[in-house]
């Protein structure tokens, strides 16, 4: 009987462990395969083509160049290595201005001819039109499409996922936004967190730390919207006033809110670590004539360094992955920040803000999965760093 229970219990544990691992692997696999789909997408919106005059020999356009052409930032083909002729942008809507409804036909059946006519007439034209309309037309030059290059995504400095005709998925602004916000959050949270945990573990009278510690732990349970709301109501206007900014929503506001959110974790974990420093270790230091402060920073902190590191990393983990609060206070401008006082945008905030409007299976949708994968790698790197640091510290003991 006992043996049976034993055996069944073992089965259940093995099974649940197995199922969990498989589910996690499936999730990661799903994330990766969706993300990889982005690099199989054409750069021009699906179902559309770019048509040029036959004389125009420009043969390859990057997403960024297409955007510049259609924004009229590039106004002459020689800028792209082509002939010296002015760029003339043509969209499907333009047909309605050039031709009457009868000419185009009730069902747009003549639209293809008319587009081709325009393309043949205008040497510098670039027409963004549905593929089906112009497929059969001769004497026009359709720009051959290609898939989104990995390099343009990973090193791209612009994020315009909804630009037409060709969205731009450069992740650098989001990546640097995330790193900036997290970095400054840690820069702010670390000294305060360390100071408060030292105070709680070493200086505060027992009565004070008995009250303060549960209060700080309570802060961990506050939902992040509330922090975001607080940031929006207090920190943002404060920053705007003190630094005389046009808008208070900025990277720094995000960092401050994140620091606030990471503090409870950093404090509780490192305080525990310092309390675990053996009493005789402290006494040995004091017995040698060291002061209380010397004992703290020369013995207690080094002894607890791996605990403190894991507290900080758990804090960073929260900062890097945090969405809501950051979304609310950073201003969400997808540009590479040149100063922490500018609006910026982080990876999680982007995913949260854009997933709702990205059609499933499209390039935009897949690009958001790619962002998820990148976030995954950032966390992975941070965690491995911790493993290495604490493993090194263990062997030192």
């Amino acid at each position, binding site marked *: 009987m006992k043996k049976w229970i034993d055996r069944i219990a073992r089965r259940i544990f093995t099974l649940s462990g197995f199922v969990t691992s498989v589910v996690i692997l499936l999730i990661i696999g799903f994330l990766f395969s969706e993300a990889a789909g982005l690099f199989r997408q054409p750069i021009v919106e699906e179902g559309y083509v770019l048509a040029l005059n036959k004389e125009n020999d420009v043969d390859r356009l990057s997403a960024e160049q297409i955007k510049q052409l259609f924004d009229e930032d590039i106004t002459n083909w020689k800028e792209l290595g082509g002939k010296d002729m002015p760029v003339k942008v043509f969209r499907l809507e333009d047909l309605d201005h050039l031709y009457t409804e009868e000419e185009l036909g009730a069902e747009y059946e003549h639209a293809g001819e008319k587009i081709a006519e325009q393309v043949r007439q205008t040497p510098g034209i670039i027409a963004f039109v549905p593929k089906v309309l112009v497929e059969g037309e001769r004497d026009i030059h359709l720009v051959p499409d290609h898939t989104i290059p990995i390099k343009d995504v990973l090193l791209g400095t612009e994020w315009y996922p909804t630009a037409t005709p060709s969205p731009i998925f450069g992740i650098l602004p989001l990546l640097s936004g995330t790193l900036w916000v997290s970095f400054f959050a840690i820069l702010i949270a670390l000294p305060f967190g360390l100071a408060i945990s030292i105070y709680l573990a070493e200086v505060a009278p*027992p009565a004070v730390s008995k009250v303060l510690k549960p209060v700080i732990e309570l802060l961990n349970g506050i939902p992040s919207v509330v922090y975001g709301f607080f940031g929006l109501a207090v920190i943002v206007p404060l920053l705007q006033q003190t630094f005389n900014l046009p808008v208070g929503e900025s990277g720094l506001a995000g960092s401050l809110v994140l620091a606030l959110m990471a503090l409870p974790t950093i404090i509780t974990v490192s305080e525990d670590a310092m309390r675990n420093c*053996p009493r*005789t*270790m402290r*006494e*040995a*230091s*004091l*017995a*040698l*004539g*060291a*002061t209380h402060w*010397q004992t703290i920073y*020369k*013995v207690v902190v*080094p*002894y607890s360094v791996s605990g403190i590191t894991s507290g900080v990393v758990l804090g960073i983990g929260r900062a890097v992955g945090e969405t809501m609060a950051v979304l609310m206070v950073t201003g969400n401008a997808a540009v590479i920040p040149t100063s922490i006082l500018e609006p910026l945008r982080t990876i999680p905030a982007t995913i949260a803000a854009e997933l709702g409007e990205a059609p499933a299976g499209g390039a935009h949708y897949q690009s958001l999965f790619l962002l998820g994968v990148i976030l995954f790698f950032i966390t992975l790197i941070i965690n491995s760093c911790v493993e290495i640091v604490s493993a090194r510290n263990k*062997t*030192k*003991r």
Partner: protein
Amino acid sequence: MNKIEAKNVDFYYGTFHALKGINITIPNNEVVAFIGPSGCGKSTFLRLFNRMNDLIPGARLTGQVLIDGQDIYEKGVDVDVLRRGVGMVFQRPNPFPKSIFENVAYGLRVNGIKDKDFIRQRVEEALTSAALWNEVKDKLKESAYALSGGQQQRLCIARAMAVQPSVLLMDEPASALDPISTAKIEELICELSSQTTIVIVTHSMQQAARVSNKTAFFYLGEMVEYGETKKIFTNPEKEATQNYITGRFG
């Protein structure tokens, strides 16, 4: 010349009366052993000499403890300076999470000594006097935790000796060690006694008999008997002492 003198010392942990009316004089450069059953207050008394009990909330002392004629509990006494002159070795080896060298140099560094050559020389002297130099001279940069328990304890002695204290307090310094390491520590105590006054708490009668000149027997917070070690072990005055050393209780 008396190194340490306690006059009418009473000590309380909150309401618990841990030491009762203790008087003792410890002469310069002698080894004094504290013996007695567990919980009788030996450690408590020992830790009065470097004011280690200050850290315990609710602890209270009456009476006087004098070192070199100076009341160490008087107002205005600098505790850090006092502790510099009164080294301490604990029951379990407790090296810092630092290298061997830095462990020994610690006392010098926290006391503001910066001269590198001086520190190096002191560290070597201290390790030599703790009979550890030959074993560690090639791995001074390695972590102190890489040493064996006995070596760690000798490192802790070296650490205490590096600041050249005039008193060395040892609370059961060999109780966590094997017989060979214990013998080394005892040898060390005999050698160090030429430089410092040593007070050692021990549960081993043999150890007390081997290393000390004088022995004090504690029982239930009182000092029952204090005298020449030889006399205590061969011809004690009090019956309680007699019972304890013959192993009839405790």
